[in-house]
């Protein structure tokens, strides 16, 4: 019946190269680890970093052949490159943080490196997806690798439990996501974005089929970004996972999931988004509030940051809401609304980067805060007097947390500024007010850590950051947090350009 459509690969190698590098790199790391027995322990990490840096270099120097790849399964451009840089950066940081903990009992995990690379590959594909099937496979590649990163610490029941919870709930959510995809496929008759867009234009979308389909997909993505009420895995998994994995999840997975969420809602918008727009708004508000309120009650710093990541997901969802807010769709205001959409999209991109920077800085410090015995210092009180023992570590964590709280002059403030300005611009002032009230509540729990570090005398001084490299790396991130907080404009403009590429 239909003839074999073989994609013309020859012209696409350049664009595919980053993906190939990561995929092959993952295999390479695995092979090297298996067969080269004279390796020192951290050589694998160098290799991993090298691979990720190669991705960056290839993207910088490589030819930019933007557009559909592999017969429309993927699409590349500034948007995907932007996220590839981000994932590579996060990957490098995660590698550094992870490598620092080599010596600890039960933490030597050679499988970590290939899995990290495969997870990143999944993310890259996810972001570049131009087909529901690609979304699904990218997402699953990312998720499956992450399940093991989370749950693969042998001999650590918390890790296993976290991994299992993540996996089983992830599978559950995948089922919903798939059901959504199936319904949309059913509506569009194809899984490509192009098919869907075409169908959206030409057919009258059936609310229950397409609305429910897109809603279920939203639920699937919502699970990944920790949207209430699909967020409940977050604190447990963040808590149980090794800290460097937590940092990775909180930044990279969130970024990837938001990237595809943004692309997805743009695809569905404007004809259909409004079917579930009010629910999304309500869930956004819930996400922000729930995250912040529960974070208040935490004494475990990882759980606290987990809830804070829920809250930040809420802020980012605010950006998504703005992106598709009804005023944007109004035909007579198309010019202005495009501007609003762009500002919201750019704000999301900026936020993701800022969030990655400050969160990695925080997790970088928390990751290395250990007892001599190797016990993690997850109780906030373990940080008492850290400012005396390790001023750099304390200052870095302090800056990261203040930034997360959205205090200027750190990037967290600028990120919120861009985001809320888009929200206000779209006329969603009540949402902005709720947002700022939430960021107000958040200040309290971030400050608590500062209080402990700077204002309390240490009870047990045996907890301290063990890995100087990690601390210094986090310190550098903290400097970036400040830099991007003071001089965000160039980057924001870049974000605008990048976003424009996928928009409308």
């Amino acid at each position, binding site marked *: 019946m239909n003839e074999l459509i073989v994609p013309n690969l020859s012209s696409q190698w350049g664009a595919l190269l980053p993906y190939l590098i990561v995929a092959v790199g993952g295999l390479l790391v695995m092979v090297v680890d298996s067969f080269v027995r004279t390796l020192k322990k951290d050589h694998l990490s160098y290799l991993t970093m090298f691979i990720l840096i190669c991705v960056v270099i290839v993207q910088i120097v490589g030819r930019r052949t933007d557009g559909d790849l592999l017969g429309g399964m993927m699409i590349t451009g500034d948007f995907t490159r932007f996220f590839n840089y981000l994932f590579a950066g996060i990957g490098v940081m995660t590698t550094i943080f992870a490598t620092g903990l080599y010596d600890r009992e039960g933490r030597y995990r050679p499988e970590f490196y290939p899995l990290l690379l495969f997870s990143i590959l999944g993310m890259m594909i996810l972001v570049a997806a131009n087909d529901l099937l690609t979304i699904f496979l990218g997402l699953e590649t990312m998720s499956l690798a992450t399940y093991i990163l989370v749950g693969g610490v042998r001999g650590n029941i918390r890790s296993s439990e976290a991994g299992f*919870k993540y996996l*089983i*709930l992830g599978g*559950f*959510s995948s089922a*919903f996501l798939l059901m959504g995809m199936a319904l949309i496929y059913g509506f569009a008759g194809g899984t490509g974005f192009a098919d869907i867009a075409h169908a959206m234009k030409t057919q009258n979308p059936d*609310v*229950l089929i397409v*609305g*429910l389909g897109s*809603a*279920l997909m*939203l*639920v699937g993505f*919502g*699970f990944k970004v920790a949207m*209430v*009420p*699909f967020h*409940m*895995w977050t*604190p*447990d998994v963040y808590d149980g996972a090794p800290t460097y994995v937590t940092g990775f999840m909180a930044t990279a997975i969130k970024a990837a999931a938001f990237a595809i969420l943004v692309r997805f809602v743009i695809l569905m918008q404007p004809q259909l988004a409004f*079917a*579930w727009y*009010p*629910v999304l708004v309500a*869930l956004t508000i819930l996400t922000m509030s*729930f995250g*912040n*309120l*529960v*974070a*208040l*009650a*935490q004494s475990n710093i990882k759980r606290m940051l987990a809830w804070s990541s829920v809250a930040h997901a809420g802020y980012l969802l605010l950006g998504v809401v703005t992106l598709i807010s009804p005023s944007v769709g109004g035909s007579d205001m198309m010019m202005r609304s495009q501007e609003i959409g762009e500002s919201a999209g750019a704000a999301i991109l900026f936020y993701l980067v800022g969030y990655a920077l400050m969160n990695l800085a925080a997790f970088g410090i928390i990751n290395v805060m250990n007892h001599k015995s190797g016990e993690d210092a997850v109780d906030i009180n373990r940080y008492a007097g850290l400012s005396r023992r390790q001023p750099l570590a304390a200052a870095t964590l302090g800056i990261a947390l203040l930034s997360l709280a959205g205090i200027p002059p750190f990037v967290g403030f600028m990120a919120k500024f861009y985001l809320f300005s888009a929200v206000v611009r779209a006329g969603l002032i009540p949402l902005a007010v709720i947002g700022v009230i939430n960021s107000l*509540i958040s200040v*309290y729990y971030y400050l608590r850590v500062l209080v402990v570090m700077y204002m309390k005398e240490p009870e047990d001084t045996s907890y301290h950051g063990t890995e100087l490299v990690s601390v210094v790396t986090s310190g550098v991130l903290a400097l970036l947090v400040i830099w991007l907080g003071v001089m965000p404009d160039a980057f924001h403009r870049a974000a605008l350009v990048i976003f424009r590429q996928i928009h409308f």
Partner: protein
Amino acid sequence: MESHATESLLRWIVLVPLLAAAVGGLLNRRLPKQVAGLLACGAVGVSFALSVTVFLRLTRMPAAERFVSDTMGTWIGFGNLQIDLGFTMDPLSGVMALVVTGVGFLIHIYSLGYMAHDEGFGRFFAYMNLFIFAMMTLVLGENMLMLFVGWEGVGLCSYLLIAFWFNDEANAAAGKKAFIVNRIGDFGFLLGIFLIGTTLLPHLAEGEGLFSFRTLQHHAGIMAPVATAICLLLFLGATGKSAQIPLYIWLPDAMAGPTPVSALIHAATMVTAGVYMVARMNFLFVLSPTAMGVVAAVGVVTAIFAATIALTQNDIKKVLAYSTVSQLGYMMLACGVGAFGIAIFHVMTHAFFKALLFLGSGSVIHAMSNEKDMRVMGGLKKKLPITFWTFLIGTLALAGIFPFAGFFSKDEILWKTFSSELGGVLPWALGFLAAGLTAFYMMRLVVLTFFGENRASAEVKSHIHESPATMTMPLVILAVLSLVGGWIGWPHFMGGGAWFEQWLAPVFSSGHGAAAHGAAVHGAAAGEAVHDTMMEWILAGASLAWGLIGLGVGYFVYMKKISIATSLRNLGGGVPYKILLNKYYVDEAYEGTFIRPGYLLSKNVLWKIVDAGLIDGLLVNGSALVVAITGSVLRLFQNGMVRFYAWSFTIGVTVFVLYLSFSG
């Protein structure tokens, strides 16, 4: 605006004491006592000399143009609000300046002896000089704000000097009370200033100082509609400073300060500032009969009220203090009936004899080793002859015995009260009664102190001695002034020229104008003037006789028949006596109605309930708590059960489905 002479000497009248105060205050103990004393007295002396110089210059000017000024530039200049930093002297302030610096100088000299052994010698004189500075600012200030600077400044010095011996909590409390009560008066004063300012400001010409007295006088007519309010507000200030009902309460307590302070500040000068101010603002007061009535009423009631309290006090200085309150009431009465000149006249004579009395009592206290209770005194006549005789002169002057200074001023006041349209028989009668009481309690004081046997302990007795020359010399000078000081106001009906009144006449011209106007309206004829003269004679005689009777009765009761005093004390079950002894329980009433409830309200309601409980507890921490509790409750959802997590997931999905179904 008419041009007037400038006189740059004026500023030095004010500034010299300030400089001396600054030097003395900064060097304090590093300065030997002699130098410190000399510096302080010298400064006031210079001030006095300068005052005399300028005053003499004033006398050589034509009567209508007696006005010199010295402007040191703009003080507050903002928009068309223009307030200068300047001094002026006209006949009124000239008189005041002379009295203040003159009496002040004498008291400074006196203090050299009185304070000779005090460790705070340097501090004392610094404060005293500062006081002279403030008082001169008050008197010579070119505008109301300058007056207010002095007004508050004297209050401050009063505070500092009352609390001079701050070891004793009571002294410190008395000082504070003085300042605070004065501040209550200032509250009115300030509002009065505001009212004047807002009324006048739109009508000012370019460059006119808003609160300058000349401007005010010039534009008095504009203020006519609100004159009553202005005057009452200003008068509230005056009641504070001049210890009138209801704000007199601080003055008796103020006796806690060193006696020269009582003499200078709480008898001769500062307390008359209120009278001065009312006199200064006469052009406003005459616009409001209501205000005048209030002034007169408050004055006369204060006069008799304080006199009754003075009857029973045992502290020598307290008696004098109440007497001062009473006399200040007279002055206010004079102002209230429009006799501003007489009021100032009484200010002057009162300054002489009351300073004398205080200094005399200081001499007594000094001799009695700081004992102030008259009940343990007595028989000091022989041991302190100079003190006794000068004190007696002061007493006679205060009692209004001819030809002492007090006679002239007090008699004039009573006469004006009687004859003025604004006065009448009732105020006169009350004043008259108070005059008798005054004579009586003064005689009581003299008898208890100087006559009879000494009732002190042997220890104290052995130390009794007459004061040194530095102390007695001022007494003598003041005694002379108490005798002759009144003669410059020798009234017409006794063949004098009432020169004092004439001197001040230009200042009060508007006041006189009003009085004349009133007289014309009521058809005052020349014939009545003859009748008036007769009446004046009769009243003068009566008051002289009344004074003598008072003295006589006092002497008789306390010298011969002490049992009468005892039986008087037990009259009506001793209740009236007790009331008088406890000063009508006014302090207690204030304490009970304002201070204590105010304190308790602030502490228990405002602070503990409103601030800590309601705002901080309920609103601030309460909302924080609600947030925290909400967080803790929501946290319980995170129960670790995967199935529950999945269930919440399904709920989320269900919400979507339901919404879509209903919206679709």
